[in-house]
Every structure is written in structure tokens, then in C-alpha cells.
């Protein structure tokens, strides 16, 4: 057994790997010595080593390609063009938004918007039946513009009873007064019946010779008063108007300026408590929605046009003790109006007692 054995033969791949690693200084000492002894013994291996060494030398001497003129400037300009916008601005403050991050954020916002749009709850009714019994929760609806026409809307259920021309008042003269509508009206209104598309069963001009004083009307804000507290309507027409919640809601009477004719006027269905621009006295201010008339106000015989606000002092039983006109309004005040306002009483008594005073707005067309 020889103490200096012949180097074991290499296959070409192994030899190339050893030569390559040797040229790069990657061979450990033991393998480097083995390779040297092989190269001394094998001329072909030596030639391979020399060829690869020349190749590596040529590669290392290969000049670097010259970068084009102003390459870094163009690169910087390109980056500025591609990163312009909010992200680049925020970057100046140390905030970073990768494109993927921005995408996730945008997707999240879109998802939230879509889900909130799809999952929006159905519109809440203006008032529930239970709420309808509570006067304070019923909000007034806007009053449509008057056009001088008489449009009478009746419900299907009331069609047979009230569709006759008798709905137009022909009764003898009676004071225009503020009457209380049945409390049931408010319940039905709250059910939304009145807010649905009305069924038009009659539409006619009222006879101009009908006297305004011949009918009473139910104003919009008096529905809270108990039915028993309302005085009996002086005419059949008024009776119908008060009895039928739709008439009570949608019909009012007005006196045409400069004439004695009375028009039975119906507007579009309105929410409970809606205000009309016909002759009326209405509660305004903080007490609105909590106080209502329990005794009708006589507004007949008062010359208009006039519009004014009054502060009415109340006693413990809801009676008006003093009347003070507030600043503003239009037209000249009818002489008998303060006295008429003193005839008013308000309900409920507890609320009137607590309020001490109430503001009302009077309008005479």
C-alpha cells in the first residue's frame, strides 16, 4: 500500500468545479493541494485550468458599458412622474403607502359604502299607532300652495257616505271656529293612510254664494283635544268634515279676499298637525305640539288680511288671562281679535299650567 496514492481521476464536471472554485479562491486547503497535484500529473487537466483562467481574465477585463447620458436624471424624472400624488406627498412626512396597501384601503372603503347602502334600514314611519296617541311626537307637514281651487278628497270607505254634493256647505250662517278633530284621526294618520296617494272622488269649485259663516272647519292642530271637548259642529257639512278623518285632515275653509264666498278647500294629504294658511290660530313656539285648543276661537267677522303673533298668558285651568301682541306680522290688527283670543282655552290643563303662556299665530286671509 503506497503512502502517496495517485490522485483519483475526476470526471470533467468535477474537474471544472474544482478549477472554477480554485480560480475564485473558494477551495479549502486540502482540496487545493489535491487539485495542484492533479494538474501537475495531468496535462489535459492543466490545459483546462489554463483555458478557464484565461476566460475568467477576459471576462474581468471586459469593460463596463457606458451608461447613457443623464441616466440618473431620467430615472429620477420617471420616478417623479410615476409617484406623483397623495402617496408621494405623504411620503415627505414619513408615511408610506404601498400600492397593495392603497388597494386594500380603497377596497375596504368601497365595501363599507356598498354595505351601508344595501343594508340601510327601511324608512321609519313618521309615527306609529302608539306614538300617534302622543301629541308631542307628531310632526307637522308642510302646507301645499293654495291655488284657489276646491279639491275634495275622500277615502274609499267614505266615498259612499260623503261623495254627494252635500259635502259643500249649504247650512245657515255659523261662526268660523276652531274645532277639535277626533283623536282617532291622529291614529289613522299615523298609520300612514293619509300619506298614501289619495283617491280623488270629487273635485269641484264650491258655489261662490256659499257663506263663509255657514261652516266651521277643523284646523290642523286641534286633533289632540278630546272629541268630547269639541263643540258640536254647527252644520252637516262641518259634521262630515270633522267626522271623516280625511276631510278633517285635508279640508279647510277659507274666505276669499274681498268676497263673502267660502271655499271648501282640500289640500294634498298632510301629516297630523299640518298648518294651513287659511284663517287660523295656531300654536307656535316651544308649546307647539304639547298644547292645543280645547275651546274654539271665534274668528268670524274679523277683517283681513292680517297675520300676527300673540303671547297668551294662561291661568291654571288653561284659560287665557292676557293677550300681548308680539313684534312682526303684517296687516292691520282687527279690533276684536284680542278679545276673541281671550276666549280660548288650552288643553291639556297640566301642560297649560306648566307653560304659563303660549304663543299663537293668527292668520286672516
Amino acid at each position, binding site marked *: 500500500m503506497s503512502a502517496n496514492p495517485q490522485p483519483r481521476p475526476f470526471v470533467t464536471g468535477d474537474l471544472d468545479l474544482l478549477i472554477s472554485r480554485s480560480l475564485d479562491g473558494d477551495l479549502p486547503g486540502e482540496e487545493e493541494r489535491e487539485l495542484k497535484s492533479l494538474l501537475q500529473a495531468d496535462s489535459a487537466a492543466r490545459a483546462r485550468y489554463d483555458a*478557464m483562467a484565461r476566460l475568467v481574465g477576459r471576462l474581468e477585463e471586459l469593460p463596463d458599458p457606458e451608461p447613457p447620458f443623464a441616466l*440618473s436624471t431620467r430615472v429620477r424624472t*420617471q420616478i417623479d412622474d410615476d409617484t406623483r400624488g397623495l402617496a408621494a406627498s405623504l411620503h415627505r412626512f414619513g408615511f408610506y403607502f404601498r400600492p397593495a396597501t392603497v388597494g386594500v384601503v380603497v377596497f375596504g372603503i368601497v365595501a363599507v359604502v356598498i354595505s351601508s347602502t344595501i343594508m340601510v334600514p327601511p324608512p321609519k314611519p313618521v309615527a306609529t299607532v302608539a306614538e300617534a296617541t302622543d301629541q308631542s311626537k307628531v310632526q307637522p307637514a308642510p302646507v301645499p300652495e293654495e291655488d284657489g281651487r276646491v279639491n275634495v278628497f275622500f277615502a274609499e270607505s267614505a266615498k259612499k257616505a260623503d261623495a254627494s254634493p252635500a259635502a259643500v256647505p249649504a247650512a245657515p250662517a255659523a261662526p268660523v271656529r276652531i274645532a277639535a278633530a277626533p283623536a282617532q284621526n291622529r291614529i289613522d294618520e299615523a298609520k300612514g293612510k293619509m300619506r298614501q296617494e289619495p283617491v280623488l272622488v270629487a273635485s269641484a269649485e264650491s258655489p261662490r254664494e256659499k257663506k263663509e259663516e255657514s261652516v266651521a272647519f277643523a284646523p290642523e292642530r286641534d286633533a289632540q283635544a278630546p272629541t268630547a271637548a269639541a263643540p258640536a259642529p254647527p252644520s252637516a257639512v262641518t259634521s262630515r268634515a270633522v267626522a271623516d278623518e280625511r276631510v278633517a285632515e285635508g279640508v279647510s275653509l277659507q274666505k276669499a279676499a274681498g268676497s263673502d264666498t267660502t271655499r271648501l278647500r282640500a289640500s294634498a294629504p298632510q301629516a297630523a298637525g299640518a298648518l294651513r294658511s287659511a284663517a287660523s290660530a295656531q300654536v307656535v313656539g316651544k308649546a307647539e305640539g304639547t298644547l292645543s285648543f280645547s275651546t274654539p276661537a271665534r274668528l268670524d267677522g274679523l277683517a283681513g288680511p292680517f297675520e300676527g303673533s300673540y303671547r297668551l298668558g294662561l291661568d291654571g285651568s288653561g284659560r287665557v288671562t292676557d293677550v300681548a301682541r308680539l313684534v312682526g306680522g303684517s296687516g292691520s290688527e282687527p279690533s276684536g281679535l284680542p278679545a276673541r283670543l281671550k276666549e280660548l282655552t288650552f288643553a291639556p290643563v297640566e301642560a297649560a299650567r306648566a307653560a304659563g303662556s303660549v304663543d299663537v299665530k293668527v292668520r286672516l286671509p
Partner: protein
Amino acid sequence: MIMPVRTLHEGREWPGDEKAVARFLGGDLTAFDLIVRHYSGMIFALASRLVGPWEAEEVVQETFLRAWRGLESFRGDASLKTWLYTIALNRAKARQGTLARMRKVFTSPRVNPEDDQPWPGDEAPDPAASPEEQAVAVEQRANLRKAIRNLPEEFRAAVVLRDLEGLSYDDIARVLSVPIGTVRSRIARGRAALLEELS
């Protein structure tokens, strides 16, 4: 009294990888200008050797754009040069794939019209050489570059990174994301293939 003259390059000296990255991450955008100025030549050289000088500028643009967007993910485990080389190599591969598909559609896949064109700077005269020697040198360089371009992709990248860019085996392993044994093997086989190509 002579006051020092303030030069245009004052404050623009290369501060080193770590400081340049820290300044950029702190919101100093001029630090990225320094990075571009310092590394654009190197990236261009690498890209030229991988895809040719006529496509290299595109690779450089894409490389630095990616670097801008992803520099906050640079953790300093490797040098900034190695990190940029990794991006450049991937962009070069993508660019080469796109070019190969285009050539396949519009021309013969075996013909690369750029192979026969001298590279910019290759024809610079060597004052110590005769015109004949200069012509031979230019031809030899062109042949060598053509041989490099004809190498299989994995061998070409390994040989270029080692013999032309001078990266260590460890850095090449990081750039190529392969074990170091694979790097040794690819370099050796790439050199052997080049010898065969040039013989």
C-alpha cells in the same frame, strides 16, 4: 482670508447604504437621488450584460421605481447593492421574457439583431494598440458578449454576477435565492459552457 468655496456636490457625497436609506425613510427624498446616482451605473452595467444595452435603461428605470416603492421593506440583511441587483435581475428576466415573446412573434427566434452590433464604448480606441489589434480586440469582446448572451439564463446570471460584477458567492446566492452549492455549480458550468462556445 480665503473662504472655502461651496461646491455643487457639497452635501451630496455618498453617505453609505445605511445612512442613505435611513434618510430616505425619514422623508428626505434627496437621499433617493443619491442612491440613484450611486447605483444607476452599476445597475445599468448588469442590465446591459443580461438584456443588452438597448434595453438596459428600461430595466434601470423599473428597478429604481420598484426600489422607491419598496425601500421600506429593505431590512439591511444584505447590502443595498445586493438588494438592488436582486430587483434588477428579476426585471431583466421579465424584460427578456417579453422581448423573447415579441421576437418569436415578429422575427425568427434564433436571430437577435443586437448580437452583431457593437456596444457603446466598445469601439473606443486604445492608444497603445495598432488599428489591427484594436479591431481584433473589438471583435473578441463582441464574441465574448455574444457567448454570454447565448448562455442558459441561470448560468448567465451566475457568471455575470461573479466574473463581471465581482459579487461573492454568498451575495450571488442571495441575489439568485439559491443555495451556495448551486451557485458554485452554476458558475463552473457556465464557464465551461462559455469555453465551449468560444472554442
